[in-house]
């Protein structure tokens, strides 16, 4: 069976912001798949290109190279085809308060997608179905209410219902709970989990939060400076992280004590100046601790760009892009 979504060697570049500046390689060669009924978490720091990748997946951002396939075929480029594709693939934004029109009733908000796509038959029934799927029951009670009358969790449910009403098969959720209070997170994550399990929806969830990934994701892809540096099943990747960047990210999760805390120096680097060789090498603990020298890969790390390769003694689909991981196998 074809994966629902296949991303093949996608590149997205932004032109220089000022004269003489470098081209920003926001997404720099990414491969990723999302199957029907699967939740994949795309994890990384701000500026790593994860939101750009999400936008490229939905055709909201033009790519400079690579292919995005939906159901096995490249996403259409003509206006009509694009519109049909967007019905199948919906985006959920971060902040529910910002993405709901305060002057529209909940019914109007949810029905908007149907009207854009010219779906006239059974509008009230479709809206009711979407609301109740998202846990707003009985749906009729919400029809005439306005966003300010709802709780934060309910508002995010409305945003998701607005996407669900078109019965998409792919949902891209960009930090779906980061603007919500902690006690409210759970209900939204539970909803996403239910949509994948019971409605066979494929979900790509973009987050900086490994705890969220542990809560709901089947697989995790860790992104660093435009590239996936490690990917695998959630259990494998979090229990046995191989890439030094993944290990560092996991080590700074409060209350996670299985790894020695490894705080990287500096901040997320600049996509206009991607380092040579392994893009992570200037911040890499393996380089800084002389391990790289010991393993005899110091120059390779500095000069040769490592590709994603299956890790030794790892579970199926567990891949990392690191010379040290390769040499240790």
């Amino acid at each position, binding site marked *: 069976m074809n994966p629902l979504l296949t991303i093949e060697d996608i590149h997205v570049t932004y032109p220089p912001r000022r004269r003489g500046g470098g081209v920003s390689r926001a997404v720099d060669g990414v491969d990723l798949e999302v199957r029907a009924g699967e939740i994949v978490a795309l994890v990384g720091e701000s500026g790593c290109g994860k939101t750009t990748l999400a936008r490229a997946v939905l055709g909201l951002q033009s790519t400079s190279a690579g292919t995005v396939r939906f159901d096995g075929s490249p996403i259409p480029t003509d206006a009509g085809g694009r519109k049909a594709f967007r019905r199948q693939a919906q985006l959920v934004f971060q902040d529910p308060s910002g993405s709901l029109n305060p002057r529209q009733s909940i019914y109007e908000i949810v029905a908007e997608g149907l009207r854009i796509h010219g779906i006239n038959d059974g509008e009230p029934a479709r809206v009711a179905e979407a609301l109740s799927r998202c846990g707003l029951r009985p749906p009729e009670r919400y029809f005439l209410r306005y966003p300010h009358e709802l709780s934060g969790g309910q508002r995010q449910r409305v945003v998701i219902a607005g996407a669900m009403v078109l019965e998409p098969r792919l949902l891209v959720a960009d930090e779906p709970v980061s603007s919500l*209070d*902690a006690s409210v997170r759970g209900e939204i994550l539970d909803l996403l989990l239910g949509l994948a399990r019971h409605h066979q929806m494929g979900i790509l969830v973009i987050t900086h939060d*490994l705890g969220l990934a*542990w809560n709901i994701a089947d697989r995790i892809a860790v992104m660093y400076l435009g590239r996936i540096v490690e990917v695998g099943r959630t259990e494998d990747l979090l229990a046995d992280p191989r890439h030094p960047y993944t290990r560092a990210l996991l080590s700074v999760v409060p209350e*996670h004590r299985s790894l020695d805390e490894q705080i990287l120096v500096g*901040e997320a680097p600049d996509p206009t100046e991607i380092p040579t060789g392994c893009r992570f090498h200037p911040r890499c603990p393996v380089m800084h601790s002389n391990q790289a020298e010991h393993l005899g890969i110091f120059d390779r790390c500095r000069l040769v760009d490592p590709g994603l390769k299956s890790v030794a003694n790892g579970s199926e689909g567990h891949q990392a892009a690191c010379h040290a991981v390769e040499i240790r196998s």
Partner: protein
Amino acid sequence: MSADAAIAGSAGHLLDVRDLRVTYRSNNGPVPAVRGVDMHIAAGETLGIAGESGCGKSTMAMALLKLVAPETTVTGQILLDGADVLTMKPGELRAVRWTKASVIFQGAQHVLNPVRKIGHQIDEAIVLHNTGGQHDQATRVGDLLALVGLPRRRAQDYPHELSGGQKQRVMIAMALACDPLLIIADEPTTALDVMVQAQILRLLTEIKHERGLSMLFITHDLSVLSSIADRLAVMYAGKIVEEGPAKGLLRGSHHPYTKALSAAFPTIGDPASRFAPSGLKGDPPDPSSLPTGCSFHPRCPVVTDACAAIDIQLKAPTADATWRAACVHVGGAA
């Protein structure tokens, strides 16, 4: 610490807050944001305050230095190093701010003045409080920058030339400018990336130990407090609903709200939370229309008939008198 020691020791606390109430004025009448908070911080101790938006944690923290809008009423007692902040004259208050206790505000990007150099902004506090002579001010600013891990030459930079993490470091340098005894850190790592958050937390921990500082650390992220706080207090609807030793409270809390809050931050690797996100129904209450009785009861998974009627006071669930929770299900220790 036994109950006796807790009482006897209260005189030695750097900060001792009794029955603090903060009420905002609004067009729809008074809004009680903080509704009777008692707490204390010993010298060198870090108290973490956790709670969600609107629970009154930031209001409470700002009220400690009377940093509130003029029409806001603040009552109770705030003993900072023995003197009551609430009865101080404006001049005394100015003297106490920054020299006794300083604040690391949330959102460094909005707090720093965009058209003034970093060095000048740090300098300002030193000049205003006249700590240290004129001649060594530049050295002092340089020292402070070095202390927070920034090169001395950064004093010549404007805020936009710094990254988010560096700006937060500048905020910390400013808070340390007059050698305070207490630092009030209001969500100092919110909006920072995880790695930068870890850098800032480590920096704060180091400085706190080096200088024997006390700290009040406010956050919505309970998990952050596990690494930095000695004791923890959880606020809900303007009150502390549970307080106790940080490690113990995160592992085995007694109040259903604390339980829900800590479950919302899953432990990675814990099979119980795998494919099982946990949360509560509804939102934190609006301070202008609080539920009757226990203000948590409409969202409480273990609510009883009595909860809507009685507002339970804090009591000790165990023999440890430093641990207190306000819930009908918490029996007083024998």
